[in-house]
């Protein structure tokens, strides 16, 4: 089967072909459809750049990226993204924030008015899955940071993207909220099976959620190693106390420490 995301010898240099900074160096990576991949690595190793390249927001310098059987040339048009800060629109309530992508993405942009009640239902289902039922009419400033982040994640999912890219979406949250959202994200993934690429600083998060953890190193940004995670799904949170989990955690951590030097 054709991989859903295919990086073939991709390099990406910011500014100037020769003297610019090599943010991605000769990346080769295949992600299967419906796979959950996590990327970890030291700060500045090019994780966010990887996402930008995948979604076509920044052109690669050499090599080729194929997403969903099409070569990436400009911004791809159906990807869901969420970032560390929720970037909600302050003049829209929760429901309307979640539904924003439907007003933009094809084909929903042509029928979101007619099918509004159907989409409202979909939005409510998503909000329910992240325990935000009842907050539909609240405005962003009436929500806590963690709640805003959940809204942002729902927004990235509302149009049922085949590819979901998350850049440290839980980075700014406290541990309890974060773990709640891990399980919520796992549930959503099990139910809808999008392909997910999750960038994170948190190795526990990566090992708990992903099928495969990619480890990157900086200067130049490159993939140094990867680890397949085979725990059965759905994974309970207590898995993180498991000794096998601990071993995987430690080996990934050791590898990152090694490449950070």
């Amino acid at each position: 089967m054709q991989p859903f995301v295919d990086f073939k010898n991709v390099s990406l240099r910011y500014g100037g072909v020769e003297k610019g900074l090599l943010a991605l160096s000769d990346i080769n990576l295949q992600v299967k459809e419906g796979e959950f991949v996590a990327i970890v690595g030291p700060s500045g190793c090019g994780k966010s750049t990887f996402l930008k390249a995948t979604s076509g927001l920044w052109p690669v310098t050499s090599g080729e990226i194929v997403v969903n059987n099409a070569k990436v040339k400009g911004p791809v048009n159906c990807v869901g993204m969420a970032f560390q800060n929720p970037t909600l629109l302050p003049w829209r309530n929760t429901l309307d924030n979640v539904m924003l992508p439907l007003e933009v993405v094809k084909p929903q942009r042509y029928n979101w008015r007619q099918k509004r009640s159907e989409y409202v239902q979909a939005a409510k289902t998503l909000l329910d899955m992240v325990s935000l039922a009842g907050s539909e009419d609240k405005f962003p400033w009436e929500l806590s940071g963690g709640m805003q982040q959940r809204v942002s994640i729902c927004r990235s999912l509302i149009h049922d993207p085949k590819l979901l890219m998350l850049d440290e979406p839980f980075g700014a949250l406290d541990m309890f909220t974060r773990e709640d959202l891990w399980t919520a994200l796992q549930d959503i993934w099990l139910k809808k099976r999008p392909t997910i690429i999750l960038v994170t600083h948190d190795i526990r998060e990566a090992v708990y959620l992903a099928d495969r953890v990619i480890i990157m190193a900086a200067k130049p940004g490159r993939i140094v190693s990867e680890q397949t995670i085979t725990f059965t799904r759905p994974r309970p949170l207590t898995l993180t106390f498991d000794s096998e989990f601990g071993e995987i955690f430690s080996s990934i951590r050791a590898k990152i420490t090694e490449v950070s030097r």
Partner: protein
Amino acid sequence: MKPLATLVEAAIPLIVIIAFFLIWELATIIFQIPQFLLPAPSAIFAVIVKSFWPIMGHAWQTMFTTSIGFLIAVAFGLFGGVVLGSSRTLYKAFYPLLIGFNSIPKVAVVPVLVIWFGIGTVPAIISAFLISFFPIVVNVATGIATLEPELKDVLLALGAKRRDIMLKVGIPRSMPYFFASLKVAITLAFVGAIISETVAANSGIGYLMVSAASRFDVPLVFAGLLVTSVMGVGMYAVAAVIEQRTVGWAMRGTAAQP
């Protein structure tokens, strides 16, 4: 208790204004300041009552030129701000020119306007426009240009075109900046119109003050100043109310509280 507290809060500005006039009045009496230097508020009010209709006629003229100039500035300012804000290149290209224009003292432009348009209403409208246009453009452009890059990325990855980003996010986001600039612009528009009237007009508050000054009718000059500031405050209040109604979401700290 709560309604009383809000009542007091609303009354405070009024009390300050009354106190201001009282102290002024007392100062003119205590220090025996002559009328032709600093007329007492009572004398100013007396003049306003005595020449009420002529003053209103001039005030109306100023109000008219100011409003027209201001409305033109709003239209062009919104349009220019959206255009400049939507493109980094245009923003960078035009910004120095805008700054350059804005640095020209508008008094210096009035003689040129007189050469082009004669004296009267037109130069007043144009100077009101020129002086109030700048803050609107800059504010709208800034509001659009400071869009969070992540939000832009989210939309671009959904296949959004530049127009979508503008309509869904850029323009709504710039509205608080726009309304904030209106409050500044409307008072500046008065300045523009009155400057022009003092140089090149035969009606309007500016003309009234200059001609009164040439007759050493200082209380009338002050009456003109007072009427101007009342009009300015009134227009400012209108702009503030519109702002509150339309972009209250941007002032959630103060407005959204029950």
